[in-house]
């Protein structure tokens, strides 16, 4: 048991410490990711859940260092297999992208270059990182397409000839083309219908079985609960709760997590769906203290004044004054 | 002494008071204001030509081909006429031709576009095809053909330029009408029993106006260049009438001998006037469509 645990801690693929990403606008500074820390183990499937605008996509883009002005990573460390991504030179970071970390995007309809054949896009990606000739790269591209459940001859197709689900498979094939150890999927199924969604998730699970670590960014709590080992709940740039998926669903600690679970429709339990009152805060002028307190049913006096600490409760982390 | 700065402030306030409510605070606003200043200055110049021009533009005013001096700030031409005075008077014909032509092409292009876009069908397809073909034809060459048949005169120039710009207005209005007619407020009006004429005049036409202003300014800029081109080629006025394009062509034989002032000023005015309208059009399109530019 001891051995297993120490192995686990050595097996950390990703270690994020105190990461902040801000957007600078005329109205002021928007803290999209606010001092976030998290870990990801080898072959772990983690789900990052939150409402739109909570900073989950910004977190994903920060890991890839794809934040564009007016956004900027202002502080923190992103240790990936031991090296700090934020300290890499641009060219070194380029070689990490695609090769060591793959990314799948939300909208497969707009994420592929409409003017290039599927095969050419895969070949270009492979040749960016590996010194192989075109023929070899094309053969690999066909195998990749087969591995995500598409016929190999789709290399000769243009994106507009494929359906949304097929294009998302292509996106996954592109993301795993160089066998990266980490795969980040940013809302990969939001734009797709339910049946296709299940197929895409199956591919992601297969990717995990093959040894990769997966970060799934989603607003769909039930999807994350079903597929991931661990869930991370984000609210207004903070991680408010983090822990084992099963435990988190069975016994949510943070009032926001509870609200999220209650708002998920459940066809088995004939329970009433509760919608959470209020709206996500304006992140340029967030509420003082705990950013969730205006919507929190259990808000205390201290919540309005002071930021809650991250507290460990039953092996889970929760950022809430209730557990102090 | 104390009066002067105050007057300046008042002029500035007046300018902001006039422009502010019309032009919303946006990216393209400075362009619009710069354009308006150019256009209004040239308009005033045309109106007040008799008062501000130092000489009669068609009479001898100094030694022929003398360079710019205090007596003739822009020099004199080969017949000893004052170029500044010719430049001032030369603004009249181009403005008259271009504005009258714009009025004519609008009053043809706008209603046809409205009807064609609103009713659609075979008629629309036929009209569009004709208009698109005309639009694809080089406008100056079309204008030259018309002017050549009708003979050189100011009125014929108006006819030629009007014909050329009908498709521009037609295409703009038709496109807008197509997108407007399926909008909710038009559907609602139809459901409430409004007739076609009423829908076109009360619901569609008013919504065309902003786009129409942008297209108007840009096509005026273009028409100025067409007018100057026709005039340069001798299809509008004959000597001694002052017109920028025509004066430029009269200066051309003197260019190899280095009499730069004969061509510099009239041609520059053509550019300036076209630039004024182009700035207004471009600026307004940014003001009204802030999503695309930024």
């Amino acid at each position, binding site marked *: 048991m001891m051995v297993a645990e120490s192995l686990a801690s050595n097996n950390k693929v990703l270690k994020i410490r105190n990461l902040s990403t801000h957007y600078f606008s005329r109205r002021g500074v928007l803290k999209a990711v606010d001092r976030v820390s998290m870990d990801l183990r080898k072959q772990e499937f983690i789900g990052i859940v939150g409402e739109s605008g909570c900073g989950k996509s910004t977190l994903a883009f920060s890991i890839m260092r794809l934040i564009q002005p007016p956004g900027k990573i202002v502080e923190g460390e992103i240790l990936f297999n031991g090296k700090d991504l934020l300290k890499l030179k641009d060219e070194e970071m*380029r070689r990490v*992208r*695609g090769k060591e970390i*793959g990314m799948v*995007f*939300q909208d497969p309809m*707009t*994420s*592929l*270059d*409409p*003017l290039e*054949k599927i095969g050419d896009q895969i070949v270009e*990606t492979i040749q*960016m*990182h590996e010194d192989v000739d075109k023929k070899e790269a094309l053969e690999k591209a066909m195998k990749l397409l087969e591995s995500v459940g598409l016929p190999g001859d789709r290399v000769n197709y*243009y994106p*507009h000839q494929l359906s949304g689900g097929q294009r998302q498979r292509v996106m996954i094939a*592109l*993301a795993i*083309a160089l066998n990266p150890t980490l795969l980040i999927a940013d809302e990969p199924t939001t734009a797709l219908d339910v049946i296709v969604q299940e197929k895409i998730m199956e591919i992601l699970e297969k990717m995990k079985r093959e040894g990769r670590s997966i970060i799934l960014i989603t607003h769909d709590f039930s999807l994350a609960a079903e597929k991931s080992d661990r869930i991370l709940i984000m609210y207004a740039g903070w991680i408010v709760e983090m822990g084992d998926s099963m435990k988190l669903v069975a016994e949510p600690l943070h009032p926001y997590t509870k609200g999220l679970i209650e708002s998920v429709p459940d066809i088995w339990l004939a329970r009433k769906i509760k919608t959470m009152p209020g709206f996500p805060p304006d992140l340029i002028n967030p509420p003082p203290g705990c950013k969730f307190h205006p919507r929190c049913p259990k808000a205390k006096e201290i919540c309005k004044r002071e930021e809650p600490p991250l507290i460990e409760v039953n092996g889970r982390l929760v950022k809430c004054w209730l557990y102090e | 002494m104390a009066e002067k700065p105050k007057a300046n402030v008042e002029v500035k306030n007046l300018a902001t008071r006039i422009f502010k409510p019309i032009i919303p605070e946006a990216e393209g606003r400075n*362009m619009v204001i710069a354009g308006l200043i150019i256009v209004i200055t040239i308009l005033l110049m045309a109106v007040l030509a008799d008062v501000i021009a130092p000489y009669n533009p068609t009479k001898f005013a100094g030694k022929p081909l003398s360079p710019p001096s205090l007596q003739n700030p822009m020099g004199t031409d080969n017949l000893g006429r004052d170029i500044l005075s010719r430049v001032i008077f030369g603004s009249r014909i181009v403005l008259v031709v271009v504005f009258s032509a714009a009025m004519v092409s609008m009053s043809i292009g706008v209603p046809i576009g409205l009807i064609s876009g609103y009713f659609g069908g075979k008629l629309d397809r036929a009209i569009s095809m*004709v208009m*698109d*073909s005309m639009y*694809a*034809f*080089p*406008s*100056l*060459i*079309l204008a*030259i*053909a*018309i002017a*050549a*048949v*009708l003979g050189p005169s100011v009125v014929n120039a108006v006819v030629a330029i009007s014909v050329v710009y009908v498709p521009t207005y037609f295409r703009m209005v038709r496109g807008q009408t197509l997108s407007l007619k399926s909008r909710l407020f038009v559907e609602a009006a139809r459901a409430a029993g409004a007739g076609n004429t009423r829908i076109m005049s009360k619901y569609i036409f008013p919504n065309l106006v902003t786009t129409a202003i942008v297209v108007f300014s840009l096509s005026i*800029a273009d028409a100025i260049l067409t007018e*100057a*081109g026709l005039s340069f*080629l001798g299809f509008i006025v004959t000597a001694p009438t002052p017109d920028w*394009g025509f004066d*430029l062509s009269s200066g*051309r034989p003197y260019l*190899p001998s280095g009499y730069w002032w004969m*061509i*510099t000023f*009239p*041609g*520059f005015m*053509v*550019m*300036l006037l*076209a*630039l004024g309208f*182009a*700035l207004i059009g471009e600026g307004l399109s940014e003001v009204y469509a802030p999503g*695309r*530019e930024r």
Partner: protein
Amino acid sequence: MASLKAYIATRALLVIPTVIILLTLVFFILRILPGDPIASMVGQKVPPEVLERLREEAGLNKPIYIQYFEYLFNIIHGNFGRSMIWGKRPVIAEIMDRFPATLELTIFGFILSVLIGVFTGSIAAFKRNSKLDASMRIYSIIAYSLFIPWFGMVLQMIFGVYLKILPIAGRITPGVEPERITTLYVLDSILTLNFQALSSSLIHLFLPSLTLGIVLSGAYTRLVRNNLIDILSQDFITAYRARGVKDRKIALHAMKNAFIPVITLMGLQFAILLAGAVLTETTFSWPGMGTFLLERIQYRDYNSVQGAIVFYALFVALISLIVDVIYALIDPRVRY
């Protein structure tokens, strides 16, 4: 690729109505518009018998619908009539003497305008909201407002009259013309390896094509900038970056995408280019179609005028067909 052929065939068929409409338009202008073309061209001083003879020669005394069908029939058979002056040569032969000069000028002007426009527009887009961007936008609007004869003369004044380094008139130094193959001097002198003719024709081409190129580049600058900004913000560009594709390669992909609307503009710009060429030719004494048209209007050569305008119409239709084909070659979404 079979679908590409089918697409081109459909497009080619669609050109036919456009051509007929354009020809009808030309017919309408030249024969139905109020005013007698012969009289207005010849002027008032000519005796009525001569006027009548000229009308007869131009076939203007027949009923209008017969004139119309004769006119269409003749054009379809490549018969543009004979010139009414001098040797009474076939109009088409006269046009073929002059058209290559215009083609050469417009091709060079076109290439320059696209190069300048794509260059300035890309700079503006990649350096968005910088001072450079602002100056490129000012450039685009000023270039658009330039009056071709004036700008041409300013260039003539600087490079021809003061610096004396470039010729201000003509197509080539008389006496060094290359052997006639295509009548495109640049091409002919390359084909016959005649470098004297090549350099002479290139230096004569420089100012006129630069004049056209700069004036027409403004529209491209603006379009390329706005499109490129739009493309650069799209998901697939971020996706390229997320796969570690090099910035330079991404820029090329972005420009390829931004180029698609530019092709559409090219079609429209070509008409403006031809109109601009009329003024450029006059300014630079360039012996092309534009000067031919103006000269024949002056000589009251009705058949040549009609022939020249009809030829312009056919050329415009051909260009629009070529543009459609290029469009299909670049954008796979069109051809499948």
